[in-house]
């Protein structure tokens, strides 16, 4: 009898724990669903073609209307410039780590430094950009687009290195050896065999890195300043981006025209979350559709 009772207790414990496990999933998903629902519900009414197509020129203090065209433009420019800086550095570093430096002392130093870079808080990246351009330009309070791109690039590099490294390691050595056996030099093997095989994974990694920095606010807050219209010159003057627009507009929601500003905040939030989510889903789709078959 006691044996039966014990087994029943064990079975109950097992069920109970399984239920608890799934509860953690529910607890984690509840905020995500609530967040998406809130942003869509509050943002959708504000997201009109006019809102997306106009900027904030002349609407600093009062008046309805205005929009986020300039902030979208700024986000695109700053993020693309960051990618232009970070992707070549990140991919080359990963290629060197996997194909050339593996096992060397310098490689372990670089790997360690990439780990350190992964841990740099985003606001510290912003402070770095500020310090760098304060020294370079001589302006005690520099405000320019390229500074934001440098800060974002600093945050992107480790993500890119890590994901490209993973992908290059997945390329089977058989492919490299087959290429060498045909007399192809190492650099051509890397460029023509290894990188094309891993390209889907690399694109996925880069897209995820872009998605991550596109929503960054803290570093941009320190170096981009602000603007009411699109500024396509990264070397002169403030630039507005979506995340910074959201944060700065939030301060206006307690004053006059509070309702107008609240609409702008949530409209911009919805726009930003759509951009980030589209990039994320695109990255996964690219990754799973074009993934190389490893044969295992």
């Amino acid at each position, binding site marked *: 009898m006691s044996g039966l009772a014990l087994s029943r207790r*064990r079975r109950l414990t097992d069920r109970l724990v399984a239920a608890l*496990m799934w509860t953690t999933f529910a607890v984690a998903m509840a905020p995500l669903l609530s967040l998406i629902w809130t942003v869509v519900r509050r943002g959708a009414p504000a997201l009109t073609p006019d809102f997306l197509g106009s900027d904030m020129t002349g609407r600093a203090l009062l008046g309805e209307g205005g929009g986020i065209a300039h902030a979208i433009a700024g986000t695109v420019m700053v993020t693309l410039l960051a990618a232009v800086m970070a992707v070549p550095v990140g991919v080359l570093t990963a290629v060197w780590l996997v194909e050339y430096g593996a096992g060397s002392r310098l490689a372990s130093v670089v790997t360690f430094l990439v780990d350190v870079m992964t*841990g740099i808080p985003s*606001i510290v990246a912003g402070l770095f950009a500020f310090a760098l351009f304060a020294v370079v330009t001589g302006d005690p309070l520099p405000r320019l687009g390229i500074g934001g791109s440098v800060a974002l690039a600093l945050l992107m590099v480790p993500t890119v290195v890590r994901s490209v490294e993973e992908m290059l390691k997945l390329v089977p050595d058989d492919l490299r050896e087959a290429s060498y056996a045909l007399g192809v030099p190492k650099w051509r093997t890397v460029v023509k065999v290894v990188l094309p095989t891993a390209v889907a994974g690399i694109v996925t990694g880069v897209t995820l890195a872009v998605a991550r920095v596109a929503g960054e606010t803290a570093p941009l807050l320190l170096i981009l300043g602000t603007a009411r219209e699109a500024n396509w010159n990264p070397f002169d003057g403030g630039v507005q981006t979506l995340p910074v627009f959201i944060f700065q507009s939030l301060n206006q929601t307690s004053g006059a025209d509070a309702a107008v500003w609240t609409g702008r905040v949530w409209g911009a939030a919805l726009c930003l979350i759509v951009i980030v989510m589209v990039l994320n889903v695109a990255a996964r789709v690219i990754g799973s559709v074009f993934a190389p078959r490893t044969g295992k």
Partner: protein
Amino acid sequence: MFRRIALTGALLVIAFLAGVAVFLTAKGVPAFGAEAGEQLYGKDSLVGLVGPLLFGTVLASVIAMVVVAPLAIGLALVISHYAPRRLARPVGFLVDLLAAVPSVIVGLWGIEVLAPRVAPLLESLDRLPFLEGPVPSSGRTLLTAALVLALMALPIVTAIMREVFAQTPRAHEEAALALGATRWEMVRMAVLPYGRSGIVAALMLGLGRALGETMAVAMVLGATGAKLSADLIAADGANTIAAFIANNYANASGVKTNVLVFAGLALFVLTFAVNYLGRWVASRGRVAV
């Protein structure tokens, strides 16, 4: 030739990081020349300003990790051991999606949805002897900020733990099952002991992430000063370094910017130490993180 080009990339990483150290130090060191009072945001000394901020940063992040630990272990086990294979991938994807939400939007949600909901909870905590309050009606306190931090650190901690749990040797699991263990007993006897150092490492790395999180805290937290306080539910409690910088930067000029850079440098050193410790624990436990 190509080897050289690739090497240049690697060397640029080193140069990049050296630049971070050099420029932060160059702009941070003049902070020692700041005079007491106005230039130090009303404090007597640089330590008197950065110390309380460090304390607030660590306090909020540690509370966040206390919340995250059980959730992440459960969530990682769901993905690695409990969910049927067909479900494990979508579940993992949803958790990753949580990590993709920009922090400024998490902050908005924290102010709008979370803070008003936890306000009554904070009121009931107010009866505890060591918490004094008064609780702000907006619910924007350090404890609320810690909950937001927990939400933001959860995906990364879960991702690391699920890698660790997946590394459990199949033989250990099957041995436990063959002895008649239920699934939970198998997890308790095989998976958790094997992953113990991995769990610690994941929490350390999550802590490193939480320490540096800026926007969500800057938005949710009502406090803007640099008070030394352990009162989690007060309207004007402790603040974190990152949030303090974000909230005060716009109005800073002259030596005050140096003071903020110095605070950032302190944050960088702290996160570096925590991350390093995390990786050290992971390498001792022979788990790949």
